């Protein structure tokens, strides 16, 4: 396979995947939250809202399909392999960003519609008054995530192996090692120094740290239980967190292994590696399948999931979830200084978000920004050297 074909496949795949998962979001959120607005479940099932969801899905997917055209056009342009890769990389990033921006615009359109629908609904204040907060005292003692100890042990095993490999196998290493592979062939060589071999384990450590943190958030995110059928909702929530944790751990371990590969390719002086490209592509598919599977099977908070042990025929109880629309800016960003929770369930999408009413949320954002900037600067410096 030519490298440009691989880049094209990855970009087209990423854009389509992004489009589908973004478009499917309204189907995956909690049933009483439509486009960031809390509405009764019955309204969510109404023909009008169903149409909104459908339109949102079709438009988002359409945008992402259209966004792949400029990439495919690259194929028929008269370009050398190098120029083509350059073109794809440049335009690919812009296109992904455009899909996201258009998607946000589309979201706002439906967010405003949902908001209007709620304003017209005279019973919404009555429902608000019937709010019930359900909290299980045993929730935190139940298994909700793969323990970070196990995750760290598995991760560190890979990282230590990656780090020690150049020492143990030092006889294998030549004076120069391949650093860049182009079209499956090594194109750049650097002299083998300690620095050459510490980069991979360092990146792995960073990745493991970030993913362990993500895994941790599934343990501490605020409980959100539907009062209508609390026992069922509780079990759904627990199963959802466990499933999310499992997917994070498996995606993470996979990534650590993929990141270890160049290290071994440098050690064994592998100059041609169609296998690496295949594994990279395979890993991408693996990530997409796991993400889709978890999202569709469980949905936000586990609401799409039917727990196996579940008392059928129970009458749903009266009571509504606490309506905290007022604290959700644009239905997406949670700012509530009165809430001690730092991690809360996302309203639009699957997973956890942070409460910007607390300083910890800003600290987390700050750290993430710093990490991103450092990575960008370091990679720019490194590519400058090369």
């Amino acid at each position: 396979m030519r490298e440009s074909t691989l880049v094209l496949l990855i970009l087209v795949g990423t854009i389509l995947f992004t489009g589908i998962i973004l478009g499917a979001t309204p189907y995956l959120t909690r049933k009483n939250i439509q486009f960031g607005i809390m509405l009764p479940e019955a309204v969510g099932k109404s023909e009008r809202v169903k149409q909104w969801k459908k339109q949102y899905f079709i438009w988002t997917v359409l945008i992402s399909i259209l966004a792949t055209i400029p990439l495919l056009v690259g194929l028929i342009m008269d370009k050398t392999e190098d120029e083509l890769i350059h073109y794809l990389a440049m335009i690919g990033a812009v296109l992904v960003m455009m899909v996201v921006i258009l998607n946000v615009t589309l979201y706002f359109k439906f967010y405003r519609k949902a908001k209007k629908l709620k304003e017209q609904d005279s019973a919404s204040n009555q429902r608000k008054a019937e709010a019930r907060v359900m909290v299980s005292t045993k929730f935190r003692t139940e298994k909700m995530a793969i323990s970070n100890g196990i995750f760290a042990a598995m991760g560190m095993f890979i990282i230590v192996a990656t780090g020690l490999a150049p020492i143990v196998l030092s006889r294998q290493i030549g004076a120069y090692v391949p650093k860049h592979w182009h079209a499956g062939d090594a194109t750049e060589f650097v002299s083998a120094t300690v620095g050459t071999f510490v980069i991979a384990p360092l990146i792995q450590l960073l990745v493991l740290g970030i993913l362990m943190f993500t895994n941790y958030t599934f343990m501490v995110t605020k409980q959100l239980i539907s009062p209508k059928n609390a026992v069922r909702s509780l079990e759904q929530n627990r199963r959802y967190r466990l499933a999310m944790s499992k997917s994070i751990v498996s995606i993470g371990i996979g990534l650590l292994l993929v990141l270890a590969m160049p290290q071994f390719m440098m050690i064994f002086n592998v100059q041609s590696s169609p296998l690496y490209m295949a594994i990279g592509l395979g890993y991408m598919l693996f990530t997409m399948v796991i993400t889709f599977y978890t999202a569709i099977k469980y949905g936000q908070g586990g609401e799409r999931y039917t727990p196996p042990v579940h008392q059928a025929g129970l009458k749903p109880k009266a009571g509504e979830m606490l309506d905290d629309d007022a604290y959700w800016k644009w239905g997406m960003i949670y700012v509530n200084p009165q809430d001690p929770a730092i991690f809360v369930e996302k309203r639009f999408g699957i997973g956890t978000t942070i409460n910007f009413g607390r300083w910890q949320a800003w600290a987390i954002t700050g750290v993430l920004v710093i990490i991103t900037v450092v990575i960008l600067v370091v990679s720019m410096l490194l590519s400058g050297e090369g």
Partner: protein
Amino acid sequence: MLLELQPYSEKPIYEQLMLEIKRGIVTGELVPGEALPSVRMLATDIGINMHTVNKVYKQLQQAKVLVKKKNGFIVNPEPLKPTEDAMTGISERIYELMIEKALYGITDDEVLFLMKNVNLTRKEH
């Protein structure tokens, strides 16, 4: 147990939480010796100030309903005996109820009927 709180009720959250924990013990949803969530975690899950939860735990500890251990509060493993404070509290509330009872001319049988119909468990869940 499943705590059920009503944020828009006239009864303050603090009183609701105290009553819910007591209810859990009475219905067996909280068993003697069972650990309660940490102050921070419970406050996070309910979405209320940590001081509120802390106050509830402290008061329940004073009433010997909860016992403080090294790593948090547990339900008192010993059976409770009515303390003087508890008896005073109960008699105060009965005093208020007796006034209402007399005011509306409610008979003892009717009170008994009401008492028997109080549902402490919430089987609908």
